[in-house]
């Protein structure tokens, strides 16, 4: 029997039993749709994490106080914060691979201005901060080195703060009180969104670090020093250089461990990628199980169908079908159904990810490879789970099959 004829016989048989066929396909449809949606979620999560990493600024090295190499015991008083403005200034003077550096002084404070007051994060930074963070302004200007040196009381607002204190108005030129110290607003930052850990990066007020240290009472606390290199390839060398400068600045002897940590974005990115990888495996496992269940569904219905269609098989055998013809017919039926189910599942999955993407704002694309693999795999499921019922059908004795009631 020609293959084209067999395909025709198989598809005819599927179309003549629409209810049975669609129920058989349902399992595969759900399985493939699940795979597609999960791939889209993983893809969306990865691109979101990548976007957040890019958002943070590229080519960054971040120096934080304390040391990860501390062997359990405390290194002594003062170890929790050994970063100073002088460290940042020394780096700015001496480091050759670094294109920009800023200390970051963190505190929270109630700010008053415009429509009312707002509790927010105050960051004392240098004039290079925006370039380092790759963060454009929507209006006004950023403070420069001269402002920093003269400790001017100028502030740049994050978009969340601007929206809450000055809804619908450009706050540039207006005044703002931070801990009863009046500041002039010189600029507003563009919206940057949340960090990967969910903090609103726009809920911030930036002031010169010198001003923060001297005019706002109570802080010389430097949370971190951020340095940026000319190119991302320089990062490893820059980390070495920064460590050397920091050790010198802190007067550490050769036997003493670092009292600071230098980390780059790739480490942070790796940590984030590790998380998505775990998530990928988890979702992949769930998706495979649903495909497996779909396959078992096909086998189940095909087995029932072989029993139900015993007479049909008998008629085919009596009119000259060979066992192999019956085997091929049933196998093709199962493959056609599972592939069709795979295609429908692909469409459903793609539509579901589009809807999900629309509501979450994630970019949930379906990679073409995933689509091909999912449909190919569902066809393979059809062959695998269709084989046993098909063989059972082909092994029927024609006399018994014809007599079957």
């Amino acid at each position: 029997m020609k293959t084209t004829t067999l395909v025709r016989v198989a598809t005819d048989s599927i179309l003549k039993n629409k209810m049975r066929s669609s129920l058989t396909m349902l399992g595969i449809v759900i399985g493939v749709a699940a795979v597609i949606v999960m791939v889209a979620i993983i893809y969306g999560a990865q691109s979101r994490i990548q976007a957040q990493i890019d958002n943070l600024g590229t080519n960054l090295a971040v120096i934080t106080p304390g040391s990860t190499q501390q062997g359990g015991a405390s290194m002594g008083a003062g170890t929790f914060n050994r970063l100073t403005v002088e460290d940042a200034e020394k780096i700015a003077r001496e480091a050759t691979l670094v294109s920009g550096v800023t200390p970051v002084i963190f505190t929270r404070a109630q700010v008053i201005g415009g429509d009312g007051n707002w509790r927010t994060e105050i960051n004392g930074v240098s004039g290079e901060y925006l370039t380092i963070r790759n963060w454009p302004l929507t209006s006004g200007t950023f403070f420069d080195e001269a402002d920093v040196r003269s400790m001017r009381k100028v502030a740049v607002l994050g978009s969340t703060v601007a929206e809450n204190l000055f809804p619908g108005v450009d706050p540039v030129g207006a005044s703002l009180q931070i801990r009863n110290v009046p500041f002039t607003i010189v600029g507003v930052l563009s919206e940057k969104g949340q960090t990967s850990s969910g903090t609103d990066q726009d809920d911030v007020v930036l002031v010169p670090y010198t001003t923060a240290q001297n005019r706002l009472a109570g802080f010389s606390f430097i949370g971190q020093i951020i340095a940026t290199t000319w190119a991302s390839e320089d990062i490893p060398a820059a980390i070495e250089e920064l460590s050397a400068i920091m050790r010198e600045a802190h007067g550490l002897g050769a036997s003493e461990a670092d009292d600071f940590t230098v980390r780059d974005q790739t480490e942070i990115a790796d940590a984030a990628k590790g998380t998505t990888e775990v998530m990928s495996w988890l979702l992949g496992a769930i998706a495979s199980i649903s495909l497996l269940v779909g396959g078992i569904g096909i086998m189940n219905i095909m087995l029932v169908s072989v029993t139900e269609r015993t007479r049909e098989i008998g008629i085919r055998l009596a009119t000259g079908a060979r066992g192999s013809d019956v085997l091929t017919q049933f196998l093709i039926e199962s493959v056609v159904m599972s592939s069709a189910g795979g295609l429908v599942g692909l469409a459903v999955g793609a539509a579901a990810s589009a809807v999900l993407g629309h509501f979450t704002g994630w970019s949930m694309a379906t990679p073409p490879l995933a689509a091909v693999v999912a449909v190919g795999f569902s066809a393979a499921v059809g062959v695998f789970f269709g084989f046993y019922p098909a063989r059972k059908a082909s092994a029927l004795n024609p006399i018994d099959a014809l007599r079957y009631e």
Partner: protein
Amino acid sequence: MESPEVIRFSRIVKSYQTGRSVVRALRGIDLTVERGEMVSIMGASGSGKSTMMNIIGCLDTPTSGTYLLDGVRVDGMSRNQLADLRNQKLGFVFQGFNLLARTSALENVELPLLYDRSGKRRDTRSVAAAALRKVGLGDRMEHAPNEMSGGQQQRVAIARALVMGPTLLLADEPTGNLDTRTSLEVMALFQALNAQGMTILLVTHEHDIARYGRRIVELRDGRIVRDTPVVGRRWAMDDLGTQPYEEALEAS
């Protein structure tokens, strides 16, 4: 090379193992059927007539003995060879019609053509349509079995049996599910086909039906107990009386 003998059975034995006991369904059958014969096989249930029919129809193989179908030795053939023989040389008509449900008359008749490995017939649709016209169902081609009467269904089955131009037509209780009039119509069709040269083997337990054949073979306990020509053979068409069946056969 056409053999004058369509069937030659020599000492055919068939025994089954059912549980612990051995059932000897056929206990040494010798039978020869020549081309153009119309043989009625009779016997009570359990006489072995169905077993004999299955062996003749290459649906089953004998335990011992030799079977020549159209001069070719059949016993000892593989499953696939038997399937090809059923396709090329045999046409089956069953009591329960055995048509594919939800499948048009045309597609039912086309079925054996789909399994034809000789590659002789290309336009399977028109070959099937011609066979349907031959049994007088030219206007029922697209009807599914559940849209047809029992007589029409049996004629579809006969068209399917004829479509490959078989050497032998096997009919197992073909009138068992039909009323008297329809039975006569079907028998008239068989007689017309036989008159055109088709060899027909008919299993029946009704004496009236058996007498439309040319020869009656009677089985009892797995042996042939009687093998006689029909004297005073009747014509089903005559028995149909005033409404002859001719129009149905005009196309043939």
